[in-house]
């Protein structure tokens, strides 16, 4: 597993030296500004507004980082031919793919972890302490990270066979469409037109389901979620991401590095 660890560490180092963590500064300023702004409103909605805004911003920042770093994971290495030298060493192509994925997940974990900390500080300022239903916030953080893990895997697959720009477009498109899989499924259930029903239901099960991973509304109302539902979604993301990684490994393994 050494090559995977080495590639992951180098991917993390690249992200840090590319000043990705500067995004934290923007996020921290946005959180501080939002906290001050929302405390000017009534107590009833200031926490709800901050949670909605904070979690949406965290998701947005995370997805941007995941897509724009993820789409370059393989494509950039091929474009700059750094992959040639790397693969001439005892690194299998699948090890490279997994190392890249692990490195970007670590980057996202550190980045989002620090953003979550900034968000919690702003929230405690608005709430003047803590709230008994705050555990849902932790679930929201976990689900945002799961979404990012899925987006990164998507970007990695596209990065294996298309240019960085196209990989970013495809990944973002699937992220957006994936946020409507719940609606697509509901539409498939109510429609009586068989081809439309099959298409809607088929797409809703095949496309990555980001809508179930969005618990921002529940979090803003401090509504608890069921533990089995959390576990199901963790399992779903693990399996879906594993399938995508398998596809990325197969695509890269079959490719001539001209």
């Amino acid at each position: 597993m050494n090559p995977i660890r080495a590639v992951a560490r180098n991917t993390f180092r690249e992200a840090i030296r590319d000043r990705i963590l500067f995004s934290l500064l923007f996020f921290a300023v946005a959180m501080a500004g939002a906290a001050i702004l929302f405390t000017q409103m009534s107590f009833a909605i200031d926490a709800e507004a901050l949670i909605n805004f904070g979690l949406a911003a965290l998701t947005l920042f995370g997805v941007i980082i995941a897509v724009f770093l993820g789409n370059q994971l393989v494509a950039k290495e091929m474009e700059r031919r750094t992959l040639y030298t790397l693969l001439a060493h005892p690194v299998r192509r699948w090890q490279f793919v997994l190392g890249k994925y692990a490195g970007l997940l670590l980057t996202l974990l550190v980045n989002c972890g620090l953003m979550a900390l900034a968000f919690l500080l702003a929230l405690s300022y608005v709430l003047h302490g803590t709230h008994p239903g705050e555990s849902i916030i932790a679930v929201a953080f976990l689900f945002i990270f799961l979404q990012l893990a899925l987006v990164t895997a998507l970007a990695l697959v596209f990065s294996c066979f298309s240019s960085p720009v196209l990989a970013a477009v495809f990944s973002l498109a699937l992220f957006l469409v994936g946020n409507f899989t719940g609606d697509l499924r509901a539409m498939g259930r109510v429609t009586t037109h068989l081809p439309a029903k099959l298409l809607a239901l088929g797409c809703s099960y095949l496309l990555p389901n980001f809508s179930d991973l969005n618990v921002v509304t529940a979090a803003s109302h401090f509504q608890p979620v069921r533990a089995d539902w959390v576990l199901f979604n963790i399992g779903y993301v693990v399996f879906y991401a594993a399938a995508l990684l398998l596809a990325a490994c197969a695509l890269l393994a079959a490719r001539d590095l001209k």
Partner: protein
Amino acid sequence: MTAIECTALSKDFPVGFWRPRPRRALDKLSLQVEAGEIFGFLGHNGAGKTTTLKLLLRLVYPTSGSARILNLPIGDPRLAAQIGYLPETPYFYDYLTCRELLSYYAELSGVPAATRPAAVLSALRRLGMEPHADLSLRKCSKGMLQRVGLAQAIVHQPRVIFLDEPMSGLDPLGRREVRDLMLQLKAEGATIFFSTHILSDAEQICDRVAILHRGRLRGMGRLDELLAEPRPEFEVIWAPLPGRAQPDAWAQSAQLLSQNGQRRSVVAATELWNWLDALRTQGGSLLSVTPLRRSLEEVYFQEAGTTPTPGDVA
């Protein structure tokens, strides 16, 4: 012992978007490189040299044929740790320093953490890059990057080293240093397979060369054998006697070598005795007669079946 063996190795690349057709980049290449040799792989740009190296390193897959390195099929996981590779015009992670880059590649090659710093320093020292060990790669010149590229190819002490145009981007001093390094590596037992279109470099250090032209092997052999093949011509160095007139034809065909009138003529073997008789009777002093040896450049163009044009080879 055979270090590298290719058997009818071929590679087609698809050309065209809608209806891709195969274009043969390498055609049934068969060759053997013995362990401890410096093997020069010569050819024009686009002859198939880089494709061959990429096939041997499994960066591209063969259309047909096979290859073995150190008696293992290419693609065997045990092989990669015993191979070093310098790509043509190498690119590296420019956010790293020279030391960090070499440490990364050494780690990937399985150099233990305890000995890694010493191995990195030793490789940098061999390439004269020790003073720049902590310089960021984005601040390195082209020549420095080439040296770092060579350092990463040898940091894990591989048994077989593939170098794609290793002298490219280096000044004359750098080229000599790289040649010396290759000879040192050979003395340490490494096998070196390097592609080049700079024939003078190959002539100075290669034990054997292969000539590739449009994807086909056109010639291969020991350098001393290829160059020893006699050329049916002689070089005659002579000087006219003072005060004696020389025939015009002689003066035109001869090349003036020095201020004191020494001249050089190239004479066909069949004409040599007549030419020397004429020199003696018409007044001239003979300084030397030397059979001409073929240069690698002549061998190259003869095997490649082409005539030299400017920029073909250096």
